[in-house]
């Protein structure tokens, strides 16, 4: 691949570029050696967090494996927007089979590579939260339990966005979706439901589990690289805001991802063999309503029909995350 101009920005320590950092601390994505695994020209919405997350993750996986990656993809936005026949954005060998079997297809690829002695080839499976936490959960758990040599990446945008924003088991409480409308005495998605798949993954005692957001690129790249340095079943859940499904501005994708982490709504941590080994601390704590206000899926919690109790319940969930994972720096008196 020839020279490719890369734009650099100096707007903060979290940005993709940042020439103020030492060369070895800069993100892979800011360098011209990145593999561009998902090429431009795909049909993701403006501001799509998943397209961004997938690009960062697969480029990092490629860099960590000397470009020896095969990807298996679940049905969903990522699959649809990246491969409108006969075009494909994928610069890596890529297969899409079904909605609920990406983990198992990846297991098959890994088995084929093993039997052929091609140990240099690494396998990444990927899907949205619906394809991971719901319909693909059986295959995912089976792949974890057998400790197959697969890195599974879940792009979590909290719903079935490809089919028109329906509720998944990763949809947050009170959120409006097409199947949890903001009507009736308890508008939006019910409280007390849903799955915490990173914790379920940890319960399988697999070598590596991590969460990340598209707001902190270096952390995401670090986690993918770390996962790729290990063998066996590995799981990374990347928080990827969806402007279409959330009713948020497309320029707010990274800001909302950061706010999810800074409010404690989405704890960012990593774990090895079922034990948490590191958390990303909250730098500037915000309340959950600050995070929710820019999203129309939570609009019914604000304005004239506002219900402070509901917001308080959501705040208490975030507070529990903060306590449980130790997301705040120890305060020194």
């Amino acid at each position, binding site marked *: 691949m020839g020279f490719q101009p890369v734009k650099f920005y100096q707007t903060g320590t979290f940005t993709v570029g940042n020439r103020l950092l030492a060369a070895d601390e800069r993100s892979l994505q800011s360098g011209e050696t990145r593999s561009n695994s998902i090429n431009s020209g795909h049909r993701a919405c403006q501001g799509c967090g998943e397209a961004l997350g997938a690009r960062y993750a697969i480029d990092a996986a490629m860099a960590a494996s000397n470009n020896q990656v095969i990807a298996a993809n679940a049905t969903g936005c990522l699959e649809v927007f990246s491969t409108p026949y006969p075009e494909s954005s994928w610069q890596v060998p890529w297969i899409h089979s079904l909605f609920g079997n990406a983990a198992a297809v990846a297991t098959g690829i890994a088995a084929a590579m093993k039997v052929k002695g091609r140990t240099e080839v690494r396998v990444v499976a990927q899907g949205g939260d619906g394809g991971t936490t719901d319909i693909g959960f*059986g295959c995912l758990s089976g792949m974890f339990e057998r400790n197959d040599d697969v890195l599974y990446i879940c792009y979590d945008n909290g719903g079935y966005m490809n089919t028109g924003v329906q509720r998944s088991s990763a949809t947050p409480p009170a959120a409006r979706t097409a199947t949890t409308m903001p009507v009736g005495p308890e508008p939006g998605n019910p409280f007390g439901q849903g799955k915490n798949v990173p914790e379920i993954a940890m319960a399988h005692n697999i070598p590596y589990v991590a969460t990340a957001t598209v707001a902190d690129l270096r952390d995401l790249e670090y986690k993918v690289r770390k996962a790729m340095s290990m063998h066996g079943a590995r799981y990374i859940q990347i928080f990827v805001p969806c402007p279409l499904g959330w009713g948020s501005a497309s320029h707010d994708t990274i800001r909302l991802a950061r706010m999810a982490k800074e409010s404690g709504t989405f704890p960012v941590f990593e774990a090895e063999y079922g034990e948490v080994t590191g958390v990303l601390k909250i730098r500037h704590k915000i309340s959950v309503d600050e995070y929710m206000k820019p999203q129309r899926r939570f609009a019914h919690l604000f304005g004239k029909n506002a219900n402070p109790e509901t917001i308080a319940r959501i705040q208490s969930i975030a507070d529990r995350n903060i306590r449980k994972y130790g997301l705040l720096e120890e305060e020194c008196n």
Partner: protein
Amino acid sequence: MLKQTEGSKAVAEAVALCRPEVICAYPISPQTHIVEALGEMVKSGSLTPCEFINVESEFAAMSVAIGASAAGARSYTATASQGLLFMAEAVYNASGLGLPIVMTVANRAIGAPINIWNDHSDSLSQRDSGWMQLFAETNQEALDLHIQAFRLAEELSMPIMVCMDGFILTHAFERVDMPSQEQVDSYLPRFEPRQVLDPAEPVSIGAMVGPEAFMEVRYLAHAKQMQALERIPQLSAQFKEIFGRDSGGLVRTYRTEDAETIIIAMGSVLGTIKDTVDEMRAEGHKIGVLGIISYRPFPLEQVKAALINCRRFVVLEKSLAVGMGGIVATDVRMAVTGTGLKGYTAIAGLGGRPITKASLHQLFRQAELDELPQVTFLDLDWDAVNKQLERERKTRRSGPAAENILHDKGLVSAKFG
């Protein structure tokens, strides 16, 4: 080498001789003995290199096979009944993607009511999935068909089910002639995939295809099966050259010369039918048999050619198109369209109901007299059916039908037959 062995074990050994690289296993009766035997071979190191993966469901079994096949590995799995239905989405996907996976289907009924015994409802439910389906008559043929199946599947880049009757074949100990590794190697070349996931040559497989190309892709599956109609007899002939026996092919006739009545069937019941026909021939009846080995692709021409000189045929099938009649019979009738032949359908052996020579004698003699209805349900207990229908007429809350009938009969299946 001649040996006395269980059908499942014979198939497992034949599959091993085909040098599979990835085997996915999920237990469901009556195919379990096949994957158990293969698992032992892989674990002991006698089958190597091969990855044996204990998956968490049949859906995963087929999905793992899809991934492995797309990555260029010769892939095999086995299933039956509910398992085949549970993997159905992936079954269609494998053929849609053109992946030459070979799968044994140890034919078994589909519930409810839950039933582990043999009929052909399972694989026939996947009739239109794009998989080829070859039916074995004996254990020897079951093992031979697996060797031919890998060759045909990989040549056409399409998947194949080798169907063998659950328990009747899978669990029966019979004499088989087990080929040598050299024989199989000379018949079955290395797997050269048409498409392969490889970082050295990245391809996208499984893209979204809209109305502009979907029909063409789907037609290709049909075209492949039409090619298989040509290749199956050729591969069977080549098989004979190396292995020295007739096995496979599209159809097989038995004593059809001068036959006025021809009985058509698939699978192990052909043995009972042939015995019955032998006895009737000895009494001077002009009766013969047509066995269908290749159910998909369906050999319309060969079936027509085999039937053209008879007066009538009876399709005896272990399957039921509920609300219509026969499944195989419909295909046979399609083959003889315009010939004016009389055709009868006999639904037999559902859920393992024994198909006895006595019943067949009666059925065939009635057919010869043209006294059969369009559809016959062989050995159906009409009293039991009518009693339940009467119960339902009388009482709204008549309760679960299967349990009522079992109660009326006062039998357990082990004592039946």
